[in-house]
């Protein structure tokens, strides 16, 4: 499907490259990055910081590509990593189990029982991950612009429909949309810098960008040194193009 779309729309196809770029940015292997993103937290603080870092790196890699021009992304969690962005058409394909089984047994030479086990496992992991990270149900159609059911529609038919949708003015990359995508990229760069920096990596922060101005939201500990705010501003300013950093934080007492 993604290949058919790339051919029709003449956009590059991006999937694994995003994980590769994120892994390379962090100096870890692709396998470690994928595992780290999916790991269910046990040692909450350490692992959640690590997972946040990995996800920030993946989102930043995706944001670089998205801001760089048109593309087709068929990879992990596009519907949540790019949620709320203009100019992005989010599509989900669904298919009945028998169709998915047939596709897998034919392409991978698996027997039917193993294929079913594999599909159920992948579905469960994906659903758990989206629930854990974003509190959303991966099957909820509100996360997507459209859901296409391959029970009756073929892949080439679905490809024609998505191509038509992508050509509509609702998804045109106008000058304003382009600016929003650049702001998104800048916000992702700052978020990644904060997730990497020693003084700020434990914080769960949300970042918005408007040109050279950055807003940082979230909860942060009110340290006796009073320096947490300074740390955040300093880290954000290390990102090229950042001039103003506004902190919109809720301060909490770390030793109540």
């Amino acid at each position: 499907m993604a290949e058919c779309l790339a051919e029709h729309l003449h956009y590059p196809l991006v999937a694994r490259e995003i994980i590769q770029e994120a892994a390379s940015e962090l100096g870890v292997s692709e396998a470690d990055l994928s595992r780290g993103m999916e790991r269910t937290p046990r040692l909450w603080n350490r692992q959640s910081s690590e997972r946040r870092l990995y996800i920030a790196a993946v989102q930043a890699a995706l944001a670089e590509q998205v801001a760089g021009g048109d593309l087709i992304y068929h990879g992990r969690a596009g519907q949540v990593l790019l949620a709320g962005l203009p100019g992005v058409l989010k599509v989900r394909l669904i298919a009945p189990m028998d169709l998915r089984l047939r596709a897998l047994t034919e392409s991978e030479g698996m027997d039917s029982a193993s294929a079913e086990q594999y599909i159920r496992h992948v579905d469960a992991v994906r659903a758990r991950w989206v629930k854990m990270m974003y509190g959303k149900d991966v099957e909820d159609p509100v996360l997507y612009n459209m859901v296409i059911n391959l029970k009756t529609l073929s892949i080439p038919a679905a490809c024609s429909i998505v191509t038509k949708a992508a050509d509509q003015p609702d998804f045109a990359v106008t000058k304003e949309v382009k600016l929003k995508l650049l702001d998104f990229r800048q916000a992702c760069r700052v978020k990644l810098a904060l997730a990497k920096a020693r003084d700020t990596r434990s914080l769960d922060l949300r970042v918005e960008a408007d040109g050279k101005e950055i807003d940082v939201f979230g909860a942060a500990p009110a340290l006796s040194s009073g320096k947490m705010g300074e740390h955040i501003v300093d880290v954000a300013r290390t990102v090229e193009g950042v001039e103003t950093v506004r902190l919109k934080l809720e301060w909490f007492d770390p030793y109540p």
Partner: protein
Amino acid sequence: MTAECLARALGYPCVGREILQEAARTVGVPVEDLSERLEARPSLFARLTQERKRYLLAVQTALAKHCVTGKLVYHGLAGQFLLRDLPGVLSARLIAPLETRVQTLTSSHHRMTQKAAEEFIQTVDEERRRWVKLMYGADVEDPSLYDITVNLQSISLDTACVIIAEASAQPQFEVTAEVRKRLEGFGSECREQLLGMGG
């Protein structure tokens, strides 16, 4: 609105409430009674089962009659179930955020407040969810019941219309002679079943 836009784009007639009116005439009751009985709350279900089945079959028969040509846009009661698994039929669902739906409702009914519109939408959704669960044991929001689900959060009605028209133009929904025969057969089956229940 999308149904009308789609009907214009495809050059097909658009039917909704007309189907209920035809069904009401067939079973010889006012359309309001038919609607009321069909949509009766679950507490009345046991008592009305036979009657409800007959009314629903009358609706299905009226719909089947219009479907025979293979050219129809239906926006009404339970199309995804009444025409389920029939060839040549594209089932589409439109969804939209509550705030969009409230805005649409208050702008078309000027006396309706935002709160009243919200309550109305929530009540209608809940009734529909309960009805579909009761009648078909399904979740009305399950995307696997439809060929395509379009979210109007960032898609305009005009674009939704273009998307659904494109879907309906795919070869899977072509009304071939074979498909037409199957649709005719479906119409006859519905009529016979309805006659078996007393017309």
